[in-house]
Structure formats: C-alpha cells, structure tokens
C-alpha cells in the first residue's frame, strides 16, 4: 500500500476530475489521495499530503493553476490538463511534465503518466533546477493583472492597481500596496518584465514605481534626483532611472 504513487486531481469541473480518476483505474500502482475543485484547496492538500503527481487545471475560480504553483512550498510533478492551448509554452516554463489538451484519450493520458513516473524517479536531480527555471524565460511576457502572495497561512490576491511601488529585498520583492506591505518571492527583473510599462517605471536598481503615484521629482543632491510619492515617501532615482522617467513623461 505505502509504495503506491500518490496523485491529486485539481479541476473545478467534476466531470473533468472523473475522467482522470477513470483513466487511473487502469493503473493499480497509483492512488488518488485528493480531488480539489479550486486552487486554495489545492495548496492545502499539496502542502499537507504531499502527492507525487498533480493533475492540474489552469482556469479555476480565485487563483489559477499557475498562481497556485507559485504558492507551493515544494512543487510535485505537474501534468496540466486544460482546454486552452495558449498556455502550453508557459506550462513548460514552470517545468510541467506534460500538457494534456481536453478532451484527451486514455493513450495520451498514459503517455503523460509514464513521463511523470520517470520524472518522479529522478526527482532529486530535477528539483534542484525547478525553482530557478520557474523564474525566467517567457518569450513574450503577458502583463500581470494580479499577484498572489502567501503570508503564513493567508493567501492574498492583490490587484495590480493596488500596488504603489515595489522594493527589492534580497531574494524577495516587497510590494507596497494601498493595504500594506507584502513579500513576494520573485525578482525585480521578473516584475520589470511582467508589469505594464505604461503604468510602471523602474527608477532604480531597487525600485519600480507606479507612474501615477509619483507626486513630484526633485533635485536631491548635485546631479541626483529623488521621487516624492503621493504618500510622502521618498525614493532614490538612479541615472538610468531618471532617463527612463524623462522618456516616460515625454510620451
């Protein structure tokens, strides 16, 4: 019993969960430990029960499949299953093992499962790369409209419009929002790429600011400027940052 491979199914449609369960009947060495119908349940189950393989839908209420992955302590082997083909590239960027397009056959399903089992056996090797792989790539970035953050047990979904500015903090980025400060495990580079340049400007190595939150730009010392924000906080502006701002406001 204990040697069985543990599988979790995360999909908001019951019939979509059922077909995975049905296809798994042919595999006796696999045990379904949970079926979840949204990302919140998914995070809880994965963090608590540590399944080996997760079948994951992308479009779900509250947080989508990708956002759920960002919030996991440890990433299991992931097989995406979705009707949307436009996420395939992104799925492989987050190191998904396979990408099943709904509806799929038993044969196609088996193929994905075998790949997952092979990957599972080599997991140690595979795990080392995953975190670094998650954070880069993207051929053409899609601009974010929200960011999900986990603070202890609480998951917050922050609309991009609520963010005032971002500040680099070691391996994290501090999001300064209208409701307080939150830490997100991403790089400044990631945010610079995924925030709409029409709204956000990187004014300094450590700061990205929402343009309409800047109240004024003042000469601070000789040849050096700083930005005064609407909440009176003052942020340094680097030389390249100043050029970017100038370009931004000239447009």
């Amino acid at each position: 019993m204990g040697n069985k491979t543990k599988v979790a199914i995360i999909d908001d449609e019951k019939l979509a969960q059922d077909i995975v369960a049905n296809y798994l009947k042919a595999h006796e060495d696999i045990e379904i430990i949970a079926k979840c119908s949204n990302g919140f349940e998914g995070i809880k189950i994965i963090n608590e029960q540590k399944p080996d393989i997760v079948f994951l839908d992308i479009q779900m209420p509250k947080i989508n499949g990708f956002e759920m992955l960002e919030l996991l302590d440890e990433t299991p082997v992931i097989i995406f299953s979705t009707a949307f083909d436009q996420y395939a590239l992104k799925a492989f960027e987050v190191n998904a093992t396979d990408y099943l397009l709904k509806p799929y056959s038993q044969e196609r399903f088996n193929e994905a499962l075998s790949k997952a089992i092979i990957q599972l056996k080599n997991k140690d090797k595979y795990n080392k790369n995953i975190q670094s792989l998650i954070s880069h790539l993207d051929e053409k970035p899609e601009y974010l409209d929200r960011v999900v953050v986990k603070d202890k047990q609480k998951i917050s979904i922050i609309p991009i419009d609520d963010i005032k500015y971002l500040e680099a903090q070691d391996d994290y980025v501090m999001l300064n929002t209208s409701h307080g400060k939150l830490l997100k495990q991403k790089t400044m580079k990631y945010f610079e790429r995924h925030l709409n340049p029409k709204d956000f400007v990187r004014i300094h190595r450590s700061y990205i600011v929402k343009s309409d939150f800047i109240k004024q730009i003042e000469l601070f010392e000789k040849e050096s400027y700083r930005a005064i924000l609407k909440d009176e906080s003052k942020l340094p502006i680097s030389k390249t940052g100043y050029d970017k701002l100038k370009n931004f406001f000239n447009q």
Partner: protein
Amino acid sequence: MINPFINSTNRFSIYFFIWVVITLVQIFTLNVILELDLGYAITDSIVFNVLYLGIGLSLWYPTRFITFENYSLLKIFLNHTVAAIVTSGFWIFLGYFILDKIFNIDGINREFLSSSLIWRFFIGILFYSIIVSLNYVIIYYTNFQEKILKESELRALIKESELKTLKYQINPHFIFNSLNSISSLTLSDPKRAQEMTIKLSSFLRNTLSKNENLKHKLSDEIKNVKLYLDIEKIRFEDRFELVEDPIEDCDSIEVPSMILQPLFENAIKHGVYESIEKVSIRLSCNIEDNYLKITVENSFDPDSVSKKGEGIGLVNIQNRLKLIYNQENLLTIRKTGNIFKANIYIPLEGGKYSG
C-alpha cells in the same frame, strides 16, 4: 455615357417639342411680324430648325470630351467658341444652300434670306451655348446621382461587413470543455453523455444557422440560451442557477440573433468561472416606453480581480445594436455590490407595443 436625348424617348420627345415651339415662333415672326408670305415662313422655319435639331444632337460629343476635369477653363472657352462659330456657320450655309438650290427662293424672300444671315449666325451661337450648357448640366447631374448611389451602396456594404465582424463567435474553450465532459460521461454515465451530445449539437446547429439571420423572435433567442445553460449545467452542476421571470408578453418580439448569448457567457465566465459560491443568473424582460427591455443579472465574487477579456463581448453588443437600430446606448451595464446587471433595449416599431 450615351447621348441623353437619344437614350431616352421621354427626353427626346421634350427636345423635339422645344424645336416645334421654336419653329412655330419663327413661322409667326416671319409671317405676322415681318409680313413674309406663309409658304416661305413655313419652309424657312422648318429647314433651319430641323437642321439645328440634328446638329444639336451631335453637340453632345464635344461636351462629352471637353470636360472640366481635363481642360482648363480658358481651353474649354476657346474650344467651344471655335466650335460654336463653325457649327453656326455650317448651319446657315446649309440652310441657305437648301432654300436657295432646292426651294429656289427668289424675290423679296431671297432678299430677306440674304440679309438675315448675320442675325441667324448669332442665333446659331445662342442655340449652341444653350445646348452645350444643358449637356454639361445633364452630365454633372448624372454623375452626382451615380455618386450618391455608389455612396449609399458603399455605406450598406460597410454596415454589412461591420455586422459580420461583430457577429457572435462560439468560444472554442466552451466546445472543448463540453467535449471533455462528454468524454468523461461516456465512461461513467453513457445516457447523460448522449443527452449532452444532442444538446451540444442542437446548440451548435442553432448558433451556426441563426447567426446568418439578422433577427429572430425573443423566444427563439431564449431557447438557444437555455440550451447553452443546460450544457454548462452539466459541466458546473449546481454552481449556478437560472431564475427566470415570465416573459409571455415579449415572446414574439423580434430581436437581433445571438444578442443575449454573450451576456450569458459573461455571466458564466465572470460569475461561475471565478466564484466558489453558487452564482445566480436572472433573466427578465418587460416593455418600457416603446422599448423592449431585457435584463440579465448575475451575482459574482467581488474579490475576483481578473479582468481578462472583460468588455469585448459587451462592446460588440453595443455596436451591433447601434448599427441595427441607429441609436446609441441600447446596452447599459451596472455593477452594484456583487451583482452585475446588463439591460438591452430593443426599440419597438411604431409604438405597436406601447399600450
């Protein structure tokens, strides 16, 4: 363009009639005022006027080729001056020749004829000017009408193509997700799989065929929407419910086809897709001051922040209504708390339902 006086018998009759009048006036002038004998007055008038009737028809060709677009005003003026002199000269020479050689005019009539050549020359130029001006007016009037016709044809074409681009399009994800549900049901519940296949087929058939028609009855529109919701119900089970107010009064009113479908798809997309709670969708309609008002309301999760794809369907509805009914603001939307409400107003013709 063909000579407008030969082209239509109607116009030729008018042209001919004018010449008859001129001939009669001339007979009267020669006989009564200048006291020439009637026989001569008639012969003279008929010969000269029949000649100009013929010459006048041929003046169409110089007008046709000396156009304002291709020549400067000075050139046009010079061309026509020369043509008028030549035409008039040719005319009086031919008239004089016929009267002299064929009718053997002599005595007082012959004296009169010789002395009248100079004023006949100026009359010839006057005729030339009148006919040429008339020809120009006809050319410009015809061109103007053609332009108006072409413009209205073009407008109709633009409208048609605009309506085509705004046409409802089936969301492919809906189809693939439905097919996945069917695939799943074939294993667990074949009877329901069959049911769903039939519903999906009916929906696709309706949607594909109805999309070609501009309008259909509201009851047909609602029937198709319900088919859609039935399919989504199989996918989402009890994650949503449809509350429907009675619609008997509005049943047979014509509405643009597939005009409600995007509203229900939005309700599913922004309501059901994004919410863990059960979503309620409400449909109602009533008649309000010459408008049929159709309301679609749905609850949604106010914390959901996804904005992707929001509004495109709604903008399409707005534009379609504007194109079809030539009125603005036939779609209004309002978000209050966790309720999203869309009203569609269909203008009723001639206040038939105004009661």
